[in-house]
């Protein structure tokens, strides 16, 4: 049903309304009434409604546990009411993003009292980061800066979760699979796990054949070398994704590649650690310390053969690029 149009009042009527509007309590009456109300207020017991917040001119009474109400109080207190509430939608790279991550989210976290709620809120934060990354990736605005911001925050949230006793595998599995357009790469850098948000390679597969950049030739050498190594360890699919991103030539992947060069071993170690915990654990630690490629190959080689079975399916699904590696993988 269409809403009715506003009724029209003519000028005389408007004047009548204006005259009516001038009617009010006399100052004396108002004061007297306020006094009387103060008496009433002081006599009564503590009201059960425990919090008050001013929200766009309305007064909202709500329970202490009502996070929305308490949060509104914070909105009142913080300098810019509109700023904080608007920041809820902010994306990395945006002006309000720092407000969102440094003010809005921590403040909301304060109102969760039980450990379970707090842990859950941290999970929510990680999910938020991934959604932000996805949104940016969809509109093609996921640059190095934004990825950096998100990745650092994810690392922070993750550390916080770990302090709560949450299993790191659970988190990482979530990170790997959650994003539709992005995924989170785990890098172990000097014993510390770092996360990096990257675009999922699937979207770029179509563009690979058409795309030509100077980095392609550079990457090819890289790629062959890497594929060789990768195939020996059976992690071809992962490597392909990395290479695919590099070929696309995004600034994001450039940095990935640079970092990946030094951290490829660590990453593979991390992956093998995931699938083969205890044995892989010590092995990856060793390769971290050594840092040399040959060592790593020897070390992880034996372990990752166990991965071959798992990754075989991935290999089969890969496109042309992996053909070489497939055969050599079988050969090794």
């Amino acid at each position, binding site marked *: 049903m269409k809403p009715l149009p506003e009724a029209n009042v003519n000028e005389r009527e408007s004047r009548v309304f204006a005259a*009516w*509007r001038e*009617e009010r*309590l006399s100052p004396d009456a108002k004061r007297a009434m306020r006094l009387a*109300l103060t008496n009433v207020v002081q006599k*009564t017991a503590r009201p059960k409604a*425990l919090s*008050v917040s001013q929200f766009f001119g309305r*007064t909202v009474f709500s329970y202490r546990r009502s996070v929305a109400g308490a949060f509104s109080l914070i909105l009142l207190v913080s300098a810019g009411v509109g700023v904080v509430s608007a920041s809820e939608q902010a994306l990395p790279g945006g002006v309000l993003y720092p407000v969102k991550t440094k003010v809005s989210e921590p403040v909301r976290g304060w109102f969760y009292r039980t450990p379970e709620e707090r842990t859950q809120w941290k999970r929510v934060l990680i999910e938020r980061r991934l959604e932000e990354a996805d949104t940016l990736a969809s509109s093609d605005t996921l640059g190095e800066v934004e990825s950096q911001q998100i990745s650092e925050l994810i690392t922070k949230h993750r550390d916080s979760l770990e302090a709560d006793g949450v299993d790191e595998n659970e988190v990482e599995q979530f990170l790997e699979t959650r994003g539709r357009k992005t995924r989170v790469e785990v890098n172990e850098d000097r014993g510390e796990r770092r996360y990096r948000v990257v675009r999922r390679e699937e979207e770029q597969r179509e563009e690979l054949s058409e795309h030509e950049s100077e980095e392609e030739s550079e990457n090819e050498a890289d790629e062959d070398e890497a594929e060789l190594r990768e195939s020996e360890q059976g992690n071809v699919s992962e490597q392909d994704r990395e290479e695919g991103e590099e070929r696309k030539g995004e600034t994001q992947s450039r940095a990935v590649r640079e970092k990946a060069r030094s951290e490829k071993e660590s990453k593979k170690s991390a992956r093998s650690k995931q699938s083969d915990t205890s044995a892989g654990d010590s092995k990856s630690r060793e390769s971290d310390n050594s840092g040399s490629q040959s060592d790593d190959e020897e070390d992880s080689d034996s372990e990752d053969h166990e991965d071959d079975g798992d990754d075989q399916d991935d290999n089969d699904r890969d496109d042309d690029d992996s053909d070489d590696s497939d055969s050599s993988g079988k050969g090794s």
Partner: protein
Amino acid sequence: MNRNDIEQGFFELYESESDALFRFVFFRVNEREAAQDIVQESFTKLWESLNGKTHIENPRAFLFRIASNKVIDRYRKKEEYSLDLLAESGFDAPSETSIAPDAALDLKQATVALKRLSPIAQEVLLLRYVEDWSVKDIAEHLGVSSNVASVRIHRGLAEWRQAVHRISSVTPKQRRII
């Protein structure tokens, strides 16, 4: 989040809404004293409800609803006023000094006309045109949809115009009888 905040919120509401509430009541009961009493009772009741209820999302709506009910209770207790009675009992008309002479007559008629309307019509007109409430807020106050509220406003305005016309079209001699 403590009692002081509640108190403060309560009195802030008082400062911002007491005049509006007074108008809302006054134009319907037409006695200043009675209107003041109802305003005070309404605020008191709001405060008491804060003791009992866990969550009052919209205190202003709550407040006006209380006042509305009190006005209706008063209607039930008293008999219908006649124009005559009003005039003799010193009916407090709004100040007319700011309005031109021929319009002044209109104002008195307009005010009386309002009194003759149904309670719902009175409410929607006062809230919409004097207090500038949105249709949405009025709908919430009435407990109906925005569309229904909009219809009520249209009807209320029509009713009022009819009443004004009836009053103003009567010759001065006949006015006493109406």
